[in-house]
């Protein structure tokens, strides 16, 4: 079984935020206002965070989303098993099971699990543009990046209909598909021949806050000084 992972090359990333827009559109993530952002209630599954990476050159904008940890702190604290590590390494979030206790949002060291403080709203003109493969999360539950898991389900179904095995090319999240600088590479980390596995093993690779032992499956690349 695949173990899905994402590599982001910070030396190629131009911080254009196309991935942020693609993610919002793909996953029915509602808009946030400056007021909600100022209150720390920004709804975005991926955002560019200004960080300093001392051993990897100058400060940079880090595209930060759920790191899909192999040892996720969020799943350990969930009282209802609404969030769990699925067999393919994706940290899933089952919205109807979530009781909104926000233990997971506090346990996540990356602060990428988001609580719905408000009922999501869109401009009227955008209402028919929602992705039917992704539910609209109600007020009171926690949501997060799922590596566009619905795309995996679609790809697997198509592969079966075609009578073939699922290949890495069949399934890419919206952010990876959109990145104009081709700074993002997605695939099976357990496949030693996959591009993502080769890049993840390169000397430029590092994981964000890896010293915490969360074993993220999002790997960043940055040339050292």
């Amino acid at each position: 079984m695949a173990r899905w992972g994402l590599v982001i090359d910070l030396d190629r990333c131009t911080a254009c935020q196309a991935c942020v827009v693609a993610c919002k559109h793909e996953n029915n993530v509602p808009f946030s206002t400056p007021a909600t952002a100022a209150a720390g209630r920004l709804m975005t599954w991926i955002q560019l965070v200004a960080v300093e990476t001392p051993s990897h050159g100058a400060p940079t904008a880090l595209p930060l989303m759920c790191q899909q940890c192999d040892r996720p702190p969020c799943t350990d604290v969930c009282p209802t098993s609404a969030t769990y590590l699925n067999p393919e390494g994706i940290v899933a979030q089952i919205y109807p099971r979530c009781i909104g206790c926000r233990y997971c949002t506090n346990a996540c060291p990356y602060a990428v699990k988001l609580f719905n403080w408000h009922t999501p709203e869109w401009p009227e003109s955008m209402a028919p543009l929602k992705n039917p493969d992704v539910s609209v999360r109600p007020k009171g539950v926690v949501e997060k990046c799922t590596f566009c898991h619905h795309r995996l389900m679609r790809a697997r179904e198509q592969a079966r209909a075609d009578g073939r095995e699922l290949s890495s090319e069949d399934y890419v999240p919206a952010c990876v598909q959109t990145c104009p600088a081709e700074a993002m590479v997605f695939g099976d980390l357990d496949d030693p021949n996959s591009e993502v596995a080769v890049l993840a093993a390169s000397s430029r690779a590092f994981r964000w806050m890896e010293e915490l032992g969360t074993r993220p499956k999002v790997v960043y690349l940055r040339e050292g000084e």
Partner: protein
Amino acid sequence: MRRALLFTGVACIAAIGSSLILPAAPVTQVLAFNHAKHAALTCAGCHAGIQTTQRAGFPSPAVCAKCHATAPASVAPAAWEQLQTSGVRFWKPVTRLPEHVMFSHRRHVALARLACASCHADIGERTAPPARMPRRLVMNTCLACHRAEGASEDCAGCHR
């Protein structure tokens, strides 16, 4: 915090309890369609999407008109004419799943060879359109079948 959690728990139990006890609102169709009379047709003959797409879909008035050049005996000619000319899809879904459930007809019918009656019960033999879903579908209905068939029980596989 404890009070909020207690309130949430009570609200959840009340919501689940009421959904189990209270049936969904009845559905009235524009036409009193007789499934049994159309038994010679396959399900896919009218619900064209069951083999190829996520949604089964309902037939448009044009599909009816392929066989019914004029109004069927049980339908007033004026009403039939209006349905044909308006082109509106007038069927109302009876079997509905919660918004957070991802169900693909292609995956189940075309790939897994699941019989329509597994979920839709005896609708193919009904002489009048049912007001409510012919078989009550809950998560255990899905899970029982998934376990029996060795299909995935990963929550994220069905909950979107």
